[in-house]
């Protein structure tokens, strides 16, 4: 009798394991903080497993086109997922905006950045860090902001470019650049900026950073991929996303 129970228990476990799938998620560097929390919640809620890779959206695009094993992309922009869908690398009808990014001018030191970004016009600094505008949406937004402010030409010789927004943040956080344009999510916890001084760039100064997600061709038959995006649309994930300073559509 006892053996029969054990057998049943073992079978139940095996069946359970068969239903748990693994979703491989490529995530834009700015979303590294929130996705950690969301992935943990998702695993707990569904029993599926996640494997998260963070990096530059442009690099992920090249990797996906060349056969990278990702099921889902959480992009830093809306162009890349649209392009992937058009080219057949992403599943049609799965795209949606999961967050709207906010750009912030930030220094780890208090009193360096004022609430209007006037430091860009008058400040005495050697290096201004931003993500490479050629490949990173946050870098592009930073350039648009400087152009709107009329400081681009004067400041461009002081640019140091991070390979992605994580490196742009690291250059500033390590003190090697005095200030830089980073994602609000990188310096925010529970809705508050954690340290230093910051100017949250008004949305009027750059094109909105609409961050879209999509199921990729590789994740078409993976139930965990669709489940992950469903979870991302849910209230629990939305609360996490908001707490990192993102807007929601």
């Amino acid at each position, binding site marked *: 009798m006892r053996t029969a129970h054990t057998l049943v228990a073992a079978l139940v476990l095996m069946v359970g394991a068969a239903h748990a799938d693994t979703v491989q998620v490529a995530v834009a560097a700015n979303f590294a903080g929130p996705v950690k929390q969301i992935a943990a919640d998702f695993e707990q809620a569904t029993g599926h497993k996640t494997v998260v890779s963070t990096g530059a959206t442009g690099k992920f695009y090249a990797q996906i086109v060349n056969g990278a094993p990702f099921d889902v992309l959480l992009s830093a922009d809306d162009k890349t997922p649209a392009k992937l869908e058009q080219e057949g690398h992403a599943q049609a009808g799965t795209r949606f905006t999961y967050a709207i990014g906010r750009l912030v001018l930030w220094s780890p030191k208090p009193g360096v950045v004022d609430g209007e970004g006037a430091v860009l016009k008058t400040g005495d600094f050697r290096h201004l860090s931003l993500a490479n505008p050629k490949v990173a949406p946050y870098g592009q937004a930073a350039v648009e902001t400087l152009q709107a402010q009329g400081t681009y030409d004067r400041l461009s010789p002081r640019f*140091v470019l991070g*390979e992605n927004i994580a490196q742009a943040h690291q250059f500033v956080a*390590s003190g090697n650049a005095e200030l830089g344009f980073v994602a609000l999510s990188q310096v925010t916890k529970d809705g508050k900026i954690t340290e230093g001084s910051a100017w949250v760039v008004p949305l009027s100064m750059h094109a909105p950073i609409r961050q879209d997600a999509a199921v990729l061709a590789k994740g078409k038959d993976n139930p965990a991929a669709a489940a992950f995006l469903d979870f991302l649309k849910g209230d629990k994930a939305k609360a996490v996303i908001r707490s990192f300073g993102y807007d929601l559509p």
Partner: protein
Amino acid sequence: MSFSAADLTAVGLTLRLAGLTTVLLLLVGTPLAWWLARTRSPAKGAVGAVVALPLVLPPTVLGFYLLVTLGPNGPLGKLTTALGLGTLPFTFPGLVVASVLYSLPFVVQPLTNAFAAIPERMLEAAATLRAGPLDAFFHVAVPLARPGFLTAMVLGFAHTVGEFGVVLMIGGNIPNQTRVISVQIYDHVEALEYAEAHWLAGGMLLFSFLVLLALYTINPPGKRGL
């Protein structure tokens, strides 16, 4: 389709960096290699190991420590700031410092092997002919170690041209300052400019092959100094 102005700037910058690094490495590496080849000091093993470290360490380790120590909060960064030089990350001199460390074993090891292969009696003979130590070094040791010098220069130069990880971490991708060829290729690939990437990447492949071909033709492998 061919090289853009930005590509050529990167090429020029890379050649400047590799050239300056090679000169500095010969100045630093020659006495160091001589010492390593001749000394009986118990510190020999430790110094040799430190020199060889860049061969086995990931560039991220070197890049990380350089960023931290040369930055405004690091000990060397405080020193350079106090000397009025500012901090070195994101500058050409910073890349030179990094490259000298990174390519050190490629210069010191061939020189050490070449010096070690010089028979002691040659130097003793020079001494009996009243050559001073410096005289003996320049007129006996250096000519005998010529293949070692050639290998050291070529590998030091080529290895610096091929540097990527360290530059990515402390360079900041600044045109004509820190955007070397390898970073420019990376940018092209990231931006999906594959045609541009092919020009530079193919050029690098050809350059590296020709350099090594020349070296191995003049200094066949297995001969002294390699």
